[in-house]
């Protein structure tokens, strides 16, 4: 018994040290984000971008929308894309062999007709069966191809794209009208120094959406969705902004990101992994370092893409397992970069961060929860330790999330209602006690999946946010 007690105590102390380190790190990121957001705070929302809209020098963009069984939301999503404000762009929907009526819905709604278009096969993909164009919207194309997965669909889209920049958007997302200009601005202004830029993803559930546009921002009634809203705020405003400031970003969300096409092609396009978005960004960093070119990958907080979050435990579990498996796969694939001075801050800071904090985080958290329970079982002398660990977990989970909510309200202020803010704040405080343990467990399952090399796709039942 004494042996086990000392084991638990040792592990518990390790967890404690780890958590304190992470809390310190995130606090640092919080301060970085705060200063950055504060600076932009009083700036007019639209004026800085007006110039780009008139300019003949805004470079055109091909928007790629991979769609697999998205009949519920696809028409709304495409409509919202056709309404964005940008001088020149095309929308390419890639129907990845859907088994539902995705293609038919598109053909009916946009009166698509088959056209002939030469495709330069720079990336290998499954066969494209037909290309459609809409007479009413000449900048809308639909590729119908054999099923090959999301990465394959995106690669087919890249082959068909005519423009020097590509943007990947999930079929179930809604872009804000000016999101595009905002995400493109740094790429244009930097004369090509920025090769990829991503915006913020937020949870659309609870928002009022009409004709593919967000009319009013709201907060869902469901606790599970509210927690995800908080989680996204924390991930984007706290994590990514801080990392982006130092060009350490390893993820540009697959739901909304713009990339320089030549670079993507040279990096080999999207790879068939569970986390194809992260995989691409790591490869772009790698390529830039290997070619010794000072390129940047950035995150911009303001442009927002609204996406549908899973509303059931089942779907959320599937999603988190898949995400975490993807993370592990990408990190493993690029393990040669870890602590490799040749890759500069990516190898020395960014990848260690992802290994230690992002990947191992849930494992440590889970161990922490187990230690707490065990310590309580061991009797009185360990209660104090259990409480200590719990307190630090509250800091780690709840308080940091609450800080992220407040940071959002201090700077971005997307939620118009006072009551939404109140709910966000109070829910964030409960995070440590139910949501964290749940997601930690699911993410651990993702790690187990990766070891089992489970390759199945977790597909979620969609209601369609923009329908």
């Amino acid at each position: 018994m004494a042996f086990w007690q000392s084991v638990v105590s040792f592990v518990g102390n390790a967890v404690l040290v780890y958590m304190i380190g992470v809390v310190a790190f995130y606090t640092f990121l919080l301060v970085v984000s705060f200063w950055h957001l504060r600076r932009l705070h009083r700036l007019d929302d639209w004026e800085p971008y007006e110039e780009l809209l008139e300019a003949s020098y805004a470079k055109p963009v091909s928007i790629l929308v991979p769609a697999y069984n998205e009949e519920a939301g696809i028409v709304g999503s495409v409509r919202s894309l056709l309404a964005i404000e940008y001088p020149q762009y095309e929308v390419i929907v890639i129907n990845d062999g859907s088994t539902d009526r995705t293609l038919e819905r598109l053909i009916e709604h946009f009166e698509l007709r088959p056209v002939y278009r030469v495709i330069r096969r720079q990336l290998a993909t499954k066969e494209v069966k037909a290309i459609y164009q809409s007479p009413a919207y000449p900048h809308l194309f639909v590729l119908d191809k054999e099923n090959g997965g999301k990465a394959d669909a995106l690669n087919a889209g890249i082959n068909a794209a005519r423009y020097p920049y590509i943007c990947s958007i999930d079929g179930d997302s809604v872009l804000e009208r000016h999101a595009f200009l905002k995400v493109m601005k740094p790429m244009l202004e930097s004369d090509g120094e920025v090769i990829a830029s991503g915006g913020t993803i937020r949870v659309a559930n609870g928002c009022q959406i009409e004709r593919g546009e967000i009319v009013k921002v709201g907060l869902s009634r469901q606790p599970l969705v509210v927690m995800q809203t908080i989680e996204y705020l924390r991930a984007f405003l706290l994590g990514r902004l801080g990392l982006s400031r130092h060009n350490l970003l390893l993820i540009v969300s697959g739901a909304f990101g713009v990339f320089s096409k030549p670079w993507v092609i040279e990096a080999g396009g999207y790879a068939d992994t569970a986390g194809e978005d992260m995989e691409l960004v790591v490869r772009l960093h790698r390529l830039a370092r290997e070619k010794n070119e000072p390129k940047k990958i950035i995150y911009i907080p303001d442009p927002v893409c609204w996406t549908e979050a899973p509303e059931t435990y089942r779907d959320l579990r599937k999603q988190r397992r898949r995400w975490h498996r993807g993370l592990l796969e990408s990190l493993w694939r690029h393990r040669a970069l870890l602590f490799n001075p040749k890759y500069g801050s990516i190898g020395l800071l960014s990848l260690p961060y992802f290994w230690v904090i992002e990947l191992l985080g849930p494992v440590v958290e889970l161990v922490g929860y187990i230690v707490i329970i065990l310590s309580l079982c061991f009797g009185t002398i360990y209660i104090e330790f259990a409480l200590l660990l719990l307190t630090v977990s509250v800091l780690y989970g709840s308080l940091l999330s609450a800080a992220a909510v407040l940071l959002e309200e201090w700077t971005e202020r997307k939620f118009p209602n006072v009551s939404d803010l109140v709910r966000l704040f109070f829910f964030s405080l409960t995070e440590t006690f139910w949501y964290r343990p749940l997601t930690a467990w699911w993410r651990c399952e993702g790690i187990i999946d990766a070891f089992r090399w489970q390759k199945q796709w977790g597909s979620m039942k969609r209601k369609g946010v923009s329908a």
Partner: protein
Amino acid sequence: MALKIAVSLTFFLFGTLTAVFAYLMVRKRRENRRQAALRAGKEQLRLPLLRYLLGDEEQPPWPASLLEREALLELLDDFAALLKGEQVQARIRAFAEEYFEGWLRRRLASRHWGERMNALFFIEDLQMKALLADIERLYRSRIATKGEVVKILTIFAKFDYRPVVVYVLQPKHELTEFAYRVIFGHMSERLLQQVKRRFAELPPAGQYALIDIIGIRRRQEQSFLQERLASEELEIRVRALKAMAEIGAPLHARQLAHHLSSPHWQERLMAARLAGRCREERLLPLLYERLSDRSFAVRAEAAAALARLPSGRIALNRAAQQADDRYARDMARQWLEGGEG
């Protein structure tokens, strides 16, 4: 001991967060109310201000509160984008200078980057040239960031302010090609010529941008000229054709053919000249026909145009020997003998 520290730290942080939360909630409520009031104020002021700007009504009263001033400024900014016409724009400018000059001047000196930028946006939209000196002071100050520098130079270009030529040669911060394009894009022809003369002094990014802008301007000029070809007025059409021949702007053969068979000799003349510049092989028969034009000038121009075509000399040869028309034979011979006559 450790537990005590951790718990007190957590409570302290929790307390701080709750305090911030309370503050933010109060602020949000206030801000929501303010926004509602601002919207209402704008609605109230919209019509009187519009009437005044269109010259129908008395000047609106001096804003009684900060909120009213903000509403007025936002409305004015909207109208500046909507209402076209020199007179209206002049009224907007005069109004802005009377009501907001002092306030914007103070904003330009603000500590907050966002506030300074917003002031610059207003000054740009409302074309408040009276603040040029203040903007220049901001440009020279140490606090001016790269974003401000680009915006200020753009405003200088828009306001046709001459010193901008020197500033772009040696900007305070290194400018990207994109920034140069924005600045050059807003320059008048006169300023752009001045920059062009000092091309070698520009940094590479500026040089690339300048070449691009000249190309874009030329293309815009070409499409402007092409549109003029549809004019009812003979003189406009003739001038447009002449200008296009001057800069070597290509025109489609079918359209050229149309102008080549105009009833007016001046138009035929300029069309022939342009045809020579375009080297349109398809126009050979039509130009051949023009060799016997009633007007000497057209005949000469048609011969010159033919001479520039790859197979033009053969055609001229044939004309010199076989043309029914004596004038045509003469003109062709003259060209073949190497004279431009």
